[in-house]
């Protein structure tokens, strides 16, 4: 949190290169949140730029009530969510597909050794594309960005319990999708 304060004060004090450093430190997370939400790289690029424009404009209002990365993540997520809402793309399934996925998981298949790594990663990428935007974003925040469930909840504005539930469903759906792939391959 101290380093957050130093970074913010450096930017607000117009220290040379301060905002460039802040951008370098957070661009990867912002990109991952947005590209997972909207998928299209051109749209994601535009929204990621807009995120940093807003960060630059609103930084004097940052009150250090959360980590700087969480605050920046919130801006990125809310811009991406608004973009999807404008396009009438639902953030989350209306039905309980995560629960359905459990029924498709077989007990016997050895997924651990069924795929080579590269093949598995391709299948996971394809399966993630089929998840609702909020689930694939939460998976990315938690597993790729190594954010805590609490931080992911703050970024997305969801209750912690809901984040856990979405993560659970998303993993189960990935497993079900991979199970199906393995069944086809066998």
């Amino acid at each position, binding site marked *: 949190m101290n380093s957050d304060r130093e970074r913010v004060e450096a*930017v607000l*004090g*117009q*220290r*040379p*290169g*301060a*905002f*460039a450093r802040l*951008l*370098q430190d957070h*661009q*990867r997370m912002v*990109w*991952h949140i947005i*590209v*997972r939400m909207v998928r299209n*790289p051109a749209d*994601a*690029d535009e929204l*990621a*730029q807009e995120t*940093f*424009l807003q960060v*630059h404009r609103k930084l004097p209002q940052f009150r250090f009530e959360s980590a700087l990365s969480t605050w920046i993540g919130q801006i990125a997520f809310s811009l991406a969510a608004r973009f999807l809402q404008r396009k009438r793309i639902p953030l989350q399934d209306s039905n309980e597909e995560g*629960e359905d996925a*459990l*029924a498709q*998981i077989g007990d016997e298949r050895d*997924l*651990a050794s069924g*795929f080579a*790594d590269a093949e*598995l*990663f*391709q*299948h*996971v*990428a394809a399966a*993630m594309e089929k998840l609702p935007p909020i689930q694939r974003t939460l*998976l*990315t925040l938690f*597993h*790729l960005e190594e954010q805590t469930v609490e931080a992911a909840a703050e970024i997305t504005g969801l209750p912690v319990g809901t984040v856990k539930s979405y993560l*659970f469903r998303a*993993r*189960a759906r*990935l*497993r079900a999708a*991979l199970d199906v792939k393995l069944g086809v391959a066998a």
Partner: protein
Amino acid sequence: MNTDPHDRESQWQQQALGAAMDGESSATAVYRRIYAGVRWAPLPALAPDFASRTLARIGVIEEDVGAVERRIVPMLFATLGVGGGITAGPQLLGALGQVAFDFAGLPWLQAAAAVTAIAVAATIDRMFSRRRVPAHR
């Protein structure tokens, strides 16, 4: 044995997560591989020039704001001057006509010093405003 698929999957997910964190092997290798898959699954890459484009865009916006300020402030002063002149000018002229000025008694030296100081300050301000660049560029 717990046969509820929800509980079973949840348990495996948690065990795999713990094992992944500890670096230990585990019977829940399936989810460990899924976690690895999420981590390494191909994702569109951030454009290499993203940072420079974003910083340039923020810089452009700052310059735009500066340009607007530069146009608006003189217009505002001009409007105030003209408006004030039209409104209060006739009354002021009438009042001044009744005042007898003693130019010989004015503190010319102090007035000249004040005008010079204002001119120097304005020149310095203009020089620095031209050189000013956004701090993050």
